[in-house]
């Protein structure tokens, strides 16, 4: 690893460096005016070279480990990954987490909108259920024809709903703590939007219900593909509004 172990090739050096190589033979070769860019490693003392060697070795090892972990984290499931996944996960999460399957293997081909309806108490004490309100439509309004759309329109509800979807099993039951947090999250988003964008007084809201409205993007007109583009709805259970849901968002 140390440079003096390798055969010096005179052709590789210019005169200045060769002169410095000679200087290395004398003691105190590195003085206060020596600039790193021109220093010859051979001019350094043994402890100095040892430190550099250790640094090179440690950095090479860490680089290899880091990139191997990143590679295996983003790779498909394979022999090495399966055997070491706990270790890789432990290293990658939370700060080196990454996902580069950008529109892959296939791009998303369906629009998913989130709708909400609320059961509200009327002034006379009776209960009324509102019509379904399309929350996603507001997002689309705030994105369309905007040069710089905000993450609050692009990602807040969309990714919140993805989170909810991913944290529930096929029967719609929450999976662990993530599942419960995701339920709270999407309902809080819905309540906040009912208040901010649909002028609803949250004190009157007893319960809310969410549903997703999914429709496939029609195939391009130059393709002969029959695609069912009708909208499918998936309702989740009514959600009783508590003070927890309103904390921080109710005016």
């Amino acid at each position, binding site marked *: 690893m140390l*440079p003096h172990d*390798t055969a010096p*090739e005179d052709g*590789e050096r210019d005169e200045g460096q060769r002169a410095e190589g000679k200087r290395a033979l004398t003691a105190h070769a590195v003085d206060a005016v*020596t600039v*790193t860019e021109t*220093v010859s*490693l051979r001019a*350094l003392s043994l402890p*100095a070279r040892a*430190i*550099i060697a250790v*640094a090179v070795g440690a*950095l090479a090892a*860490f*680089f290899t480990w880091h*990139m191997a972990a990143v590679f295996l984290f*983003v790779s498909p499931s394979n022999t090495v990954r399966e055997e070491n996944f706990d270790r890789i996960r432990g290293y990658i999460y*939370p*700060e080196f*987490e990454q996902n*580069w*399957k950008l529109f*892959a*293997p*296939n*791009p*998303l*081909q369906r*629009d998913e909108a989130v709708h909400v309806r609320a059961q509200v108490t009327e002034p006379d004490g009776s209960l009324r259920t509102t019509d379904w309100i399309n929350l*996603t439509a507001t*997002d689309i309004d705030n*994105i369309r*024809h*905007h*040069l*710089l*759309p*905000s*993450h*609050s329109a*692009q*990602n*807040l509800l*969309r*990714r*919140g709903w*993805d989170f909810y979807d991913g944290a529930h099993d096929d029967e719609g039951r929450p999976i662990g*703590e993530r599942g419960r*947090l995701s339920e709270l*999250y999407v309902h809080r988003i819905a309540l*906040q939007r009912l208040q901010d964008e649909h002028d609803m007084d949250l004190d009157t809201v007893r319960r809310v219900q969410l549903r997703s409205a999914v429709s496939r*993007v029609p*195939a*391009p007109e*130059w*393709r002969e593909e029959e695609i069912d583009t009708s909208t499918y709805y998936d309702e989740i259970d009514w959600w009783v509004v508590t003070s927890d849901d309103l*904390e*921080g*968002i109710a005016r």
Partner: protein
Amino acid sequence: MSIPSQRTGNAPAPGASPGAPAPAPSSPFRGLGRSFDAALARGLGHVTRRALGPYQTAIVRIGFAVTVLGFLLHEWPNRHLMYGQDSAWSFDMASRFAENSGAFTLLLWSDSGLWFELVYHLTIAAAVAMLLGWRTRAATMLFMIGVLSVQNRSIFMGDGGDNVIHLMSMYLVLTRCGQVWSLDARRRARRPDLEPTEDRVGIALWAVLGVALLAALVTGSVDSWIWSLFLGGMWLVHGYWWLIRRYAPGEPRVVSDIVANLVHNAALLVIMAEVCVIYATAGWYKIQGSRWQDGTAVYYPMNLDYFNVWPEVSELLSSSGMVIMALSYGTVIVQVAFPFALLNRRAKNILLVLMMGEHIGIALLMGLPFFSLAMIAMDAVFLPTAFLLWMGARATGLRARLTRRRPAPPEAPPAPAPAEQRSPAWAAKG
């Protein structure tokens, strides 16, 4: 090879001519050991003596600083909704989540509104400092802390662009990305013989950050051992650097400089490798998708409600099956080819142009300006030095022209070219 031709007895097969045996071809492996050793020594010389890619790391620094600065200013009116006290992802929920994930964020230390404003605006300030290259090392550190704080406060707010910013903000901390195009470089060039003791601002900054760090550690705000070690370690290294410059300017200083170069070069390599991982992953997974195979893939995101920003343009593009197919196949080819194109300078530069062009298209068409800006900032690590120098000269010229209009300040000599502008031999090749 040595079987004589059966058809014409006259034509002697190569190497089988009678009478005069051809000299044995020299082994292609001859001298391999020696040249390998020489290459190793040369390589070691490069990575120890210099922090490579001064212009490339500078442009990456500037690129990400601009991206984050633009993002935070653009979202400034929505900051409470996205990361603050109005967030549907409440402080308590985020705290519960972070307890499991262990993600690092200052914004969950306190739910006070004042604290939120402080962190958000300090992140903006850090981005400005990093952009200008003012106390670059400290600025990159604060930039990373700010980026992680904001993003990890509301992790369901981000997309691929935020992901790139998150990673690069951490990698940049380990680079010497202020060698050129920075206030630091200008200061060093103006006063090359500045004594460490005279650098009052540096000392004050170090002291303030030290107090802040100590407070964070003592109050248990930073409770993960790895973050304590990293933040404390970086702070100590800065103190050590000052001491070395002041008291041990000879060999200890040179060795420390070499180790810092090594860390920089390793981090630069990580950044480059990360770019390759990103494009390779994006490309290879696409190959497996039926829509990328049948050449319609690009049509779909363009026509999704969330990404269809200019329906008129999308409709125009979508009307031609050939255009959509060319874009779809082109995207996959460019992404898959990118890591291999690095082996050839010309191929790399062509692909860089294509990539950046595609990202500009995505920015406009799909409404993802900050995602695209982050990707372009990341790609910039592979830009040729000659191009960066030309761009730098253009920028300087533009500034000179703009400032000439105003009455010239009495004593403001043009900044002398920083010492680092002498580009190293390897970089000249681009």
